[in-house]
């Protein structure tokens, strides 16, 4: 079997929608009509969540107004981690199945994820100063998120570092997969070790510790941040596909 033939073009029976979307043309057919809607809904949810958190949600009993930083810090942190998980998934698709779209996605997820991680770090630092009394401490949670940021930056640099694009994709995919061990470390750091950062307020296994009037804006702005991430990545992946098409069209013209 020739692996250099575009894989994922109707030939793979397993894997579902990830394989289905792995064809760039098919991705564009789905993404192009979806993009305006994605952009509109994410903009709406971000605006509602941010305004609600900034001005309408009640002040916290312990932290007062400073707890409002939660409504941008926590969604940014969740998106930063989910973005890295997505990076690991597309890297796996790239290494194992050699989907061409997976490489493009990896290249475009990196900078966006790094941006959300930076927002998480900066907003957290601005939260730490008035509450803890320090902008930064080297506890396990903060350090592991800083490592996540550097993993993103390393990936962004590595995937663009090679003259031969395929080498960059391979190396960056290995980095992304290896770095994925950091994700459970971030999540459980506050349970495994004594940290200055507080424990998880909302856990998947139930047992949240947040009042409903503060939970709603948090969920809305989380959904908004997630959709904003997806919108940016889909727009950038689409743009990258067009750029490649342009390059091959110009090459065809030059060879004519």
């Amino acid at each position: 079997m020739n692996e250099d033939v575009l894989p994922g073009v109707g030939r793979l029976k397993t894997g579902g929608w990830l394989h289905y979307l792995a064809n760039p043309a098919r991705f564009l057919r789905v993404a192009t009509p979806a993009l305006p809607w994605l952009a509109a809904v994410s903009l709406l949810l971000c605006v509602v969540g941010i305004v609600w958190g900034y001005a309408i949600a009640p002040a916290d009993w312990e932290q007062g107004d400073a707890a409002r930083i939660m409504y941008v810090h926590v969604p940014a942190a969740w998106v930063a981690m989910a973005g890295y998980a997505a990076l690991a998934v597309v890297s796996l698709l790239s290494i194992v199945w050699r989907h061409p779209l997976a490489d493009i996605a990896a290249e475009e997820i990196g900078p966006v994820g790094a941006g959300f991680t930076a927002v998480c770090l900066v907003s957290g630092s601005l939260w730490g100063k008035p509450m803890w009394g320090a902008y930064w401490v080297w506890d396990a949670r903060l350090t592991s998120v800083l490592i996540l940021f550097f993993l993103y930056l390393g990936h962004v640099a590595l995937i663009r570092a090679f003259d031969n694009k395929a080498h960059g994709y391979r190396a960056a995919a290995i980095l992304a997969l290896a770095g994925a061990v950091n994700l459970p470390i971030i999540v459980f750091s506050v349970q495994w070790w004594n940290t200055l950062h507080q424990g998880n307020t909302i856990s998947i296994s139930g047992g949240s510790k947040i009042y409903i009037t503060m939970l709603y804006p948090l969920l809305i702005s989380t959904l908004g941040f997630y959709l904003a991430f997806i919108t940016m990545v889909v727009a950038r992946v689409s743009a990258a596909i067009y750029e490649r098409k342009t390059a091959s069209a110009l090459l065809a013209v030059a060879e004519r």
Partner: protein
Amino acid sequence: MRTPKKRRLYLVLACGLCFSAAVGLSLAAFSTSLTYFLSPRQVVAKAPAVGQSFRLGGVVEAGSVLTTLAGETPTTHFAVTDGRAAVNVTYTGVLPDLFREGQGVVAIGSMGPGGSFVADEVLAKHGAAYMPKDVEQSLKQAGKWDPKFGPPPDASSWNTMTVKAGS
């Protein structure tokens, strides 16, 4: 059938497994240095040398706070406890806003000659529970929770409590 795809998948899985095991083992091995602070019990057990810098974390013992003003800067004596042991702390300077009895704190400094911890910096550690002030008050009045004695119960109990009271 061993296709190249399957071979690559198993290779990635094997590498991932080995790498995760290596990281997990190193984290377990370095677990003490990954801990941001020592609890009073650990401090009593380890008895760090006088002048050796470390971080002490725990809860400010109720009724232990005594602040004296020497000129402009206040000096505060308080005890940090984890429920089993307590360490006396002296700190000169302005404490963070969240500092109060029953509050989690991390003090950075070293043991002084008098057996009390001399802090250069005191950080406040806040809880992971978020609720408006009036909900906290009604929880206190209902005897369901007092911030002095640890974290609140699961939010489902207080969310439904007020929802039921309102409906």
